[in-house]
């Protein structure tokens, strides 16, 4: 598996997470979706649920509701109005 993903989780008030990750599991509008490196460019809406990021520093989880996710060139951007870290 080549490369890693650059992931950022952005809410209106702050950038919640920014860093490399090997995989992202996001709550899509119609079900969970997994994103690995070399993903095709994608833009999708998110539903409600838990966003999981397999980062180098361990698994990070965020509760998100709504917003969207964009993948371009191994850069994943999660932009959501409501996001909070789950311990």
């Amino acid at each position, binding site marked *: 598996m080549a490369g890693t993903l650059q992931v*950022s989780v*952005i*809410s*209106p*008030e*702050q*950038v919640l997470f920014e860093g490399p990750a090997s995989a992202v599991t996001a709550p*899509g*509008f*119609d079900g969970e979706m997994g994103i690995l490196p070399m993903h*095709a*460019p*994608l*833009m*999708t*809406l998110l539903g409600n649920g838990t966003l999981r990021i397999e980062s180098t520093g361990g698994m990070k989880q965020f509760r998100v509701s*709504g*917003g*969207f996710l*964009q993948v*371009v060139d191994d850069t994943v*951007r999660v*932009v959501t*109005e409501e996001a909070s870290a789950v311990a």
Partner: protein
Amino acid sequence: MAKGRELKGRIKSVENTRKITRTMEMVAASKMKRATDRVAAARPYALALGEVLARLVRPEIAEKFPLLRQPASKRKVALLLLTANRGLCGAFNTNLIREARARIAELEAQGAEVEVHIVGKKGIAFFKYLGRSISSERIDIGDRPSAADAASLIDALTDRFAKGELDGVHITYAKFQSALSTPPTTEQVVPVVPPATQGTPRDFLLAPDAETIVESLLPAYVRNMVYRALVETVAGEQSARRTAMKNATDNASDMITLLRRTYNSARQAQITQEIAEIVGGAAALE
């Protein structure tokens, strides 16, 4: 020594004032730091949303969204004015109010009926003094506006725009360009002006389709515009207050120097006079 005591009292009083203004300056400086951090933190989200909308909004689909509708004529528009709850920040509130009044006059000259929505005690007080009707007023938004505050301000207005009751919503706020430059600015919130496309267009897999994505992102974009305006206005207020209080502190210091000089020369004159009197008295005895 009556004059001397009077001068001493004034020096004391100016010193106390300086103590207050210096404290306010320091408080405003630290609040400004936090407020500018929030302005910076809000930027990535605005950029990300704007970029996506710029990619997805095409003239063909624009007609389908009420928030992108361009009304043929402006009959009734809303102006949202953001001001501070507190004064002692120089011409900050005055400038915002002046900008808002200029905009209202401009819109009314175009034949539109303008309803005014105001945030902040200073703006409310001024428009009440003018005797102008205020459609809604809010004073509960403090130094740390949240995205929820922005939503509560704008959602009702965008709904009315979508229904066709309003032909536009504008917002007047202090744009935070730097700590020294926070010009009052008016921007059109709805109809939404999609940001210009930048960079190379790419083919994306879209899920669901472009229209659905745009539909759910437009309200977020509008709310974010208002959130950004709120955050920038708070930062502007604090930086204006810091500058005003710095000037006040400097002026107080100048005044103290001057008063002290006057006091010392009065004291010296008095001593000289007393010595002259003693010498004169001694000479008279011989």
